[in-house]
């Protein structure tokens, strides 16, 4: 096998960048939460129909704001949990029944020798009788990473050692890129996405249905009291059914709108995770491109829709990974990879501004509590793109320091600065454009 020196830090740690810049947008999220909480307790407007059915419907619909509240709280909780990496460590070790290598690793001295050679001091745990995972990293302290190894890696070691080594190099690159500590930031949000059906049902479908039932109950009670003749009832029922269908359509449209907001919210951290994975793939590719490509073909690329969605939260699509590994020697592809995250920031602004369109000019006091400018404006983009450009321009010089910080090793690959400067130049021009637009 021809093995090169792994480039563990080809891409800047965009996930760290996202966390560092997230705090600037915190006031926006606090405003969203405030609006959601006000929706829960706000009284009926003066002069509105205060019958029991109407009051009940109004109160229940206040819960709908939770579908905004819960995802954004999940993102903030994910970041807050990074301060306590041991919580994630314990949960992972318990959930995956991971044992220290002394107990579970006896038959595998070759793997240990390879890891000691490539990443001295790395901790290893294993569950060799679980086959739905291959290997992943998790934090065991702020600068300490543990590698979890599962049965499939051992199978692969026996089938094709070079491919198994390419996978281990991918994991080692995660360690040296400082991903272990921050990659769990998306976990609470991810758990939420996995349970989206239950969430959607409980904070959207149930409140909406109860509200419609309350209003219908009120309506029919009033009809009954007014002694309407029995012949008029079919017309009344038909009218009510029609009204419910219109409400249902409005409800579906609003649901999609909330979904758009959630996508806008989670886009940058998801791209940060994708960049970490692409970076680790590049480390494997530098070690052995052929075997990295072979490793990427082991996993089935046809997944069911939901499984595909969950996988996409943790990894870029397989075809994209394969393409990047195959073509990253091309400087244009490398530049494209480097500016992927800063471009995503622009895309996020576009989505959030689209989300705001129906509310433009609205005098709803609740909507006015939330000002999108803090996170989605030309001005916010100017600052984010400027910082991204600076990070890109300096990354060839910062990356050895960054890698030493997480690996403790002085042997690090040097980066050719030219693609970084070109990428920084592109983002600097975008930053300049956003500055002129913001004035």
């Amino acid at each position: 096998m021809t093995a090169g020196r792994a480039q563990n830090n080809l891409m800047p740690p965009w996930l760290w960048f996202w966390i560092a810049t997230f705090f600037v947008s915190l006031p926006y999220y606090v405003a969203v939460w405030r609006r959601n909480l006000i929706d829960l307790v706000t009284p009926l407007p003066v002069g509105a129909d205060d019958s029991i059915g109407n009051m009940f419907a109004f109160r229940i619909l206040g819960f709908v704001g939770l579908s905004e509240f819960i995802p954004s709280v999940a993102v903030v909780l994910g970041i807050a949990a990074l301060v306590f990496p041991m919580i994630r460590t314990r949960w992972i070790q318990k959930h995956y029944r991971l044992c220290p290598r002394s107990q579970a690793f006896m038959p595998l001295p070759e793997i240990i020798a390879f890891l000691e050679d490539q990443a001295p001091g790395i901790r290893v745990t294993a569950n060799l009788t679980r086959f739905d995972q291959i290997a992943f990293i998790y934090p065991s302290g702020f600068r300490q990473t543990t590698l979890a190894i599962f049965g499939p890696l051992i199978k692969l070691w026996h089938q094709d050692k070079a491919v198994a080594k390419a996978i281990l190099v991918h994991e080692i690159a995660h360690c040296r890129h400082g991903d272990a500590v921050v990659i769990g930031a998306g976990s609470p949000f991810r758990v939420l996405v996995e349970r989206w059906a239950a969430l959607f049902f409980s904070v959207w479908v149930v409140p909406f249905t109860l509200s419609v039932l309350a209003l219908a109950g009120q309506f029919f009670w009033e009809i009954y009291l007014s002694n309407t003749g029995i012949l008029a009832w079919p017309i009344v029922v038909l009218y009510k059914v029609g009204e419910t269908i219109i409400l249902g359509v409005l409800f579906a449209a609003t649901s999609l709108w909330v979904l758009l907001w959630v996508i806008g919210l989670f886009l940058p951290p998801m791209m940060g995770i994708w960049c970490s994975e692409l970076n680790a793939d590049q480390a494997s590719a530098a070690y052995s491109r052929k075997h990295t490509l072979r490793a990427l073909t082991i996993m089935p690329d046809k997944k069911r829709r939901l499984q595909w969605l969950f996988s996409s939260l943790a990894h870029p699509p397989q075809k994209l990974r394969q393409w990047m590994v195959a073509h990253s020697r091309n400087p244009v592809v490398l530049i494209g990879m480097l500016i992927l995250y800063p471009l995503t920031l622009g895309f996020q602004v576009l989505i959030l501004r689209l989300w705001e369109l129906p509310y433009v000019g609205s005098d709803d006091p609740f909507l006015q509590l939330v000002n999108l400018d803090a996170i989605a404006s030309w001005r916010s983009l100017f600052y984010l793109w400027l910082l991204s450009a600076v990070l890109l321009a300096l990354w060839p010089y910062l990356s050895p320091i960054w890698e030493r910080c997480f690996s403790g090793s002085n042997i690090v690959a040097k980066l050719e600065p030219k693609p970084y400067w070109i990428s920084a130049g592109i983002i600097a021009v975008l930053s300049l454009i956003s500055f002129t637009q913001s004035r």
Partner: protein
Amino acid sequence: VELINYWAVKLAEATAPSEAALAPAITSAYLQGGSVRADLFRQTGIDAAGGFGIGGLEALLPWILRSLIAASNWLYTLLASDELGNAIAAVKDGVELAEKVGSKQPKEAITQMPNNAPYSDLKHVMNVIGAELRTAGIVDDQADLITFRVINALLEKPESAVEFVRQLEAAQ
């Protein structure tokens, strides 16, 4: 434990050699039962962030162990048969046929066997093991080949194989 480990490694070597090193651990987890055993059969997990990806390397041995228990009644009769030599010859032919790439004949070889002992028991065993393997998502031809190899391995030491299946069944 020695008997269990012997058969675990032997079956893994016959069907999935890359699982041979894991075979004692897999069988031990299977015998332990509960969620530890359930973990062996997980085929689609959650793609963990910070991992390489998931899928494509599921274990075969747990499915074989489960299929042996499912076919145990016919296995006991087959392995205790007076005419075991006929069964051994039929299975050896089957392995040869199934190992030919693209061969569709192993399926026919099973269905064309006579309906008297030991072939009737052999057919039952083949059908049950094959069906279990297909539920794991293994394609027909591959499942037939694995089934032939499993039975071929068991027929090498019938008495010991019976004891092995009995111990598996006792842990069920």
